[in-house]
């Protein structure tokens, strides 16, 4: 991988983390939602570099194109009508939130460093080969063989979610 590529990855990672930070702490929910979009984009780039081209696409389509837009709509539907509450951080949970989130850090740090050291085992050539191979076909094949059951099962989930969401959203006749 060239240094340029590495730079792009680094920038994507920084974008992801930075946007996420804004998502978390920006008092304006609208900005948060927008920065979530950037974060997702960054993640999509990271996926790309991790050899998950298909997933990067799905990430963009589903998250960036779907979920985030949905969220923005929701914000507009709700917040637009009452602007008062746009600034919504400052609730009494901030201190415990910070403390708890920071409290998680040492655990995560210790665990993930440990994990990172263990994982180095995979041979780099294989990794590179894996990263280079196109995933769409592989995934498609997997979905129809090994992963057919989750594939089918998730349809039931989606059906349920669909029916449920419609039921909730529909006004009483």
């Amino acid at each position, binding site marked *: 991988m060239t240094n340029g590529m590495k730079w792009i990855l680094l920038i994507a990672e920084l974008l992801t983390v930075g946007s996420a930070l804004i998502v978390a702490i920006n008092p304006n929910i609208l900005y948060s939602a927008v920065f979530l979009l950037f974060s997702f984009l960054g993640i999509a780039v990271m996926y790309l570099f991790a050899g998950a081209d298909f997933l990067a696409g799905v990430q963009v389509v589903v998250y960036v194109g779907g979920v985030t837009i949905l969220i923005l709509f929701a914000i507009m539907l709700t917040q637009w009508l009452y602007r008062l509450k746009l600034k919504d951080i400052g609730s009494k949970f901030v201190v415990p939130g910070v403390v708890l989130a920071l409290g998680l850090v040492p655990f*995560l740090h210790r665990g993930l460093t440990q994990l990172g050291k263990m994982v180095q085992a995979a041979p780099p050539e294989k990794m590179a080969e894996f990263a280079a191979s196109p995933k769409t076909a592989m995934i498609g094949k997997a979905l129809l063989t090994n992963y057919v059951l989750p594939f089918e099962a998730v349809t039931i989930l989606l059906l349920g979610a669909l029916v449920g969401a419609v039921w909730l959203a529909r006004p009483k006749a």
Partner: protein
Amino acid sequence: MLVSLKAFAPELTLVGFLSLLFLLDGFVPKLRENRFPLIWVIVSCFAAGVATAVGKGLSGDFFSGLVTETGLVAFFRYFFFFACGVTAYVTLGSKEIEERGRSEFSLLILCMTFGMSLMVLANHFLMLYIGIETVSIISFVLAGFNRESSRSNEASFKYLVYGAVSSGLMIYGISLVYGYTGALSYPAIAEALIKNNGTHPFVFYLALVMIYAGFAYKISSFPFHFWTPDVYEGSPTPVATFFSVGPKAAGFGALLHFVLTALSQKQEGGVFTPIAGIQLAPVMALISAATMVVGNLSAIAQTNVKRMLAFSSIAHVGYVLMGFVVMTPAAFSSIIFYLIAYCAMNLGAFWIVGIVTDEKKGSELSDFKGMGWRTPVMGVCMAIFLFSLTGIPLFSGFIGKFLIFGNLIQSQSYLWLALLGVLNSVVSLYYYTKILRAMWLEKPESSDSAELRLPLSQLVGLLGLALPTVILGLFFSPVLEMAQRWITQ
């Protein structure tokens, strides 16, 4: 593949009925005006149960090892189908579910039952996650099924937030396990763990706790229990009825399966021993103790019966978790017995709450005043259910506790937990009798002291739940033997 399909037949049956219902509803919109969808659910549950019975004897991994078929799975299938069927039956007479929504309701509980099956079947983290999420997402909707009720919506919202975070933690934990072992299926994880020879890295424990978050939230064990009372109280009663039995049992089934296949080694003779170095017992004991205490103590101060029963269901989770402390086949079969007993008595108790709620438009203790005298059969049934929940002999709840405590004592450790357990059951008596007090010991308000006639279907149903509660309390060995067979298969 065909064998896999055959193994999956009960769920397929369910899916088939589900799709048919979806189609029928689309083509014949009038169907939703009557009780057809609910009856359809009962029929499909019955059919799925028959399918389970027919497919009995298959065992092993199917669908490339994503799911596995054991006696345990068969038991939980029966359990879920039964719970779902009873819920539909309960809903038949309930006024809380909007008539227009019967179709959706039926569809959703069938979907949920499917998800619960998946949870228990899962032999692979992905399947587990899909199962849990299916159950969760549909639960969110069901909790808020009364669209026009703020309480129902609030229940739904809380459930959502709590569920999303817990399952998020779980999937993160799963990702760590994946990173650590490179595997997602339980047996492969067990293999990897065995290689550690008793010393497991920090990250494994980190992941384990995170994964437990998902289970704990599903079974509402301490400290992931906070949502339970709010959600049960806010949800329509038939939904709460289902929640208190179905997903909870599914969580236990999945946890049981996970613990048995991913964290234990199977020795000959069907005995499981935990993989060296995995000491679940001390932490399980603490969790169990805390769950019991929190559930029971909180229930004491409640005035809303539904909420009280919600806390009581938390307490019962504590008792069941005691079985995980011991981790012997006998303990697991006690868990199964407990779940069976709990199913009947808890469904019954919630059902009666539902009936009263329909009559009085509320489930406060004061709404129960004199109900025993107004409908003696219901009053007697409620007494049976509540005494059984307390663990008074003659009723199945006692046998459940008897077995669970017996296992603890047999293990000759954690006696303090047994002691705490029995004292908790005394505490529980206090609030259970509050309900009985209202029903029998207090006079109904004069305005409505007339006899309340229950429809035959409800009477039959209640007696159908009360009888097993009594019979299991006196002759429990067949069921216990069955549970032992299920565990060792």
